[in-house]
């Protein structure tokens, strides 16, 4: 399906990442946001609040993030495409409902414009320190998908992907921005609506009585329905059977929770997304994502100028993690440098996948600003030497 032109602000604009994220959501068909203000994400909901009355839809500012992270799920079951938007402390409050969305297979998007933490941390400054929380933050076993944009243009483009992927896999998608990307202003080109591909919700064609809301269909993903269609469904956060009825036993746990894990893990090859350059002849590969990727590109060029054969791998979808590709790079003897705005999070995944075959070096940073290029260069040199 093509995008609804009402939500698409076709043309070239100068937007910051937060505003571009909002435009991406509107273009993707998002017509409901429940939010709660928090720096540096607030501009996303501010723009939505001003745009949605004209496009047609609802913005509601809830009383807290516990409310905003579940109200959107009500809207999804009513048939809307919906998201919520937050940053560090708010993301922490949302954890229980990320688990609910995973367990009930509610397609929706959680935007986190990351700032320095823990606790109130650095409200106005960047970090990438919620990456593990995005993946593991709610209790229990589950899988989500997380994207990481590195520019306002990508905030627009990847937002559409985020909504589409959430529908395809019936999974909550984490949109992991950071303060820097959220607040930098760059040119954003928004195409015509008929150039934007939208994944419609996969509504069942089965009649009431036959449809089972949690019975796996194509790609292990059950079909959807919406409230009022006559299916009279039951949806619970308890472990449940195909009908959605509570089923509290190890077999049902394996069937349901096992499947929501497997539907992502077993199809990770189709989901993972990354970009590479100069990797072929490289002795060292820098891995990065989001804003740090843009600094890392400078570092890779500077190191090449110094004569080190270094390449770049940029993660677009961070979760699920491109395990196979990292293993391949390690197999080829390429030393790995992980650059991220935290003291080591995705780094541990890289290290795990390298299985000790090559040095894996962290170019970490506590946040508050982006890395110095020279610091990443020094880590590239270190990796090159101990290779």
């Amino acid at each position, binding site marked *: 399906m093509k995008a609804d032109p*009402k939500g698409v602000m076709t043309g070239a604009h100068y937007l910051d990442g937060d505003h571009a994220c909002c435009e991406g959501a509107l273009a993707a068909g998002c017509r*409901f946001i*429940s939010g709660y203000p928090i720096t540096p994400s607030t501009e996303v909901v501010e723009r939505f609040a001003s745009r949605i*009355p*004209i*496009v*047609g*839809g*609802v913005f*509601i500012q*809830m*009383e*807290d993030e*516990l*409310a*905003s992270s*579940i*109200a*959107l*799920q*009500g*809207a*999804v*079951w*009513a*048939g*809307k495409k*919906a998201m919520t938007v937050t940053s560090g402390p708010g993301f922490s409050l949302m954890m*229980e*409902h990320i688990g*609910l969305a995973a367990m009930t297979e509610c397609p929706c998007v959680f935007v986190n414009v990351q700032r320095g933490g823990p606790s109130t941390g650095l409200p106005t400054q960047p970090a990438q320190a919620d990456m593990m929380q995005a993946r593991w933050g709610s209790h229990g076993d589950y899988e989500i998908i997380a994207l990481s944009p590195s520019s306002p243009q990508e905030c627009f483009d990847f937002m559409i992907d985020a909504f589409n992927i959430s529908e395809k896999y019936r999974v909550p998608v984490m949109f992991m921005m950071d303060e820097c990307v959220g607040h930098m202003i760059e040119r954003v080109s928004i195409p015509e609506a008929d150039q934007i591909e939208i994944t419609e919700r996969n509504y069942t064609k089965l009649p009431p009585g036959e449809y089972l809301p949690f019975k796996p269909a194509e790609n292990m993903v059950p079909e959807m329905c*919406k*409230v*009022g*269609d*006559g*299916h*009279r*469904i*039951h*949806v*619970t*956060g*308890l472990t449940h059977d195909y009908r959605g*009825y*509570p089923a509290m036993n190890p077999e049902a746990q394996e069937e349901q929770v096992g499947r929501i894990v497997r539907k992502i893990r077993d199809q990770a090859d189709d989901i993972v997304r990354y970009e590479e350059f100069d990797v072929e002849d490289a002795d060292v590969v820098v891995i990065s994502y989001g804003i740090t990727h843009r600094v890392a590109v400078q570092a890779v060029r500077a190191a090449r100028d110094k004569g080190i054969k270094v390449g770049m791998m940029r993660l677009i979808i961070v979760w699920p993690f491109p395990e196979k590709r990292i293993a391949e790079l390690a197999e080829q003897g390429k030393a790995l440098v992980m650059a991220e705005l935290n003291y080591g999070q995705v780094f541990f995944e890289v290290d795990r996948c390298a299985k000790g075959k090559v040095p894996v070096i962290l170019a970490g940073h506590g946040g508050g600003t982006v890395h110095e290029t020279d610091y990443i260069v020094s880590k590239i040199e270190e990796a090159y030497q101990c290779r």
Partner: protein
Amino acid sequence: MSVTDELKAAVQAQTNKSGDAGHPMEDFLRMDRIPHIWCPTCGIGVVVNCFARALEKIGIPLDDVAVVSGIGCTGRVAGYVKIDSFHTTHGRAIPFATGLKLGNPKLKVVVISGDGDLVSIGGNHFVHAARRNVDITVICVNNFNYAMTGGQMAATSPTDSILTTSPYGNFETPFNLPFLAESVGATYVARWTALHIHRQTEAMIDALTKPGFTFVEILAPCPTIFERRNKFGDGLDRLNYYYEHSEIKHGEPTANVDVGLRTKIIVGKFVDKDRPTWLDSMNSHLKRKLGDRFTPYEG
């Protein structure tokens, strides 16, 4: 009406829609989930029964109704009603219902949950949904405790009640729920006990048909925990207690209706007023401000 008359009337109402010999509630319940988990003489079943009767009397197609519950013994209601139903997280039924209602305003969205769920952990959502006047009906089964987790004190437990986390008696002051609901903006507020099956059904009909945030509190026996620990006997003994201690006072100022451990219980319809709903306000306000640029929202 005396206790026996009320009970007789209840029995009389026990025929299913098709008039055959099946379970009287089979049009409304997920019979494939029966038997339910509730204890004998628990008050929650009465509320479900009355809710079904209220929907039937209103004549609303069940496909247009959705029930949202939180977590608790009462939270399990969503799992037994044969309509679109959501068993969400502890305390958050109201914000889920808010999203559901705003996502499709044509739906009749009803929250049925426990006192702990709605006003202890979920208190913030309760007050804000009422303040906004979101068009939902909230039915609170108040059994004065956290029953599902084994009977801990709640924000509704009367002072001096004995519960597992108030082993020497509760020294806190509980919420007076009708007073709370009125003060934060509910358009309809009533309280009945599980004994008052006709009156609670009528209250549910009022609440379900009135626009805005409407609130019905039902005091219900929890024989297994609250009644046993506080020496009220079993569920039927407690109904008898309600019978002897309830006083109907429609229009009573809600400030006067707090419930003590062994005091009289004031029941009735306390609030019935009109206020524009959140969605009506949004549509009329934005139309006024934006004129033709505004796209009216109907879902």
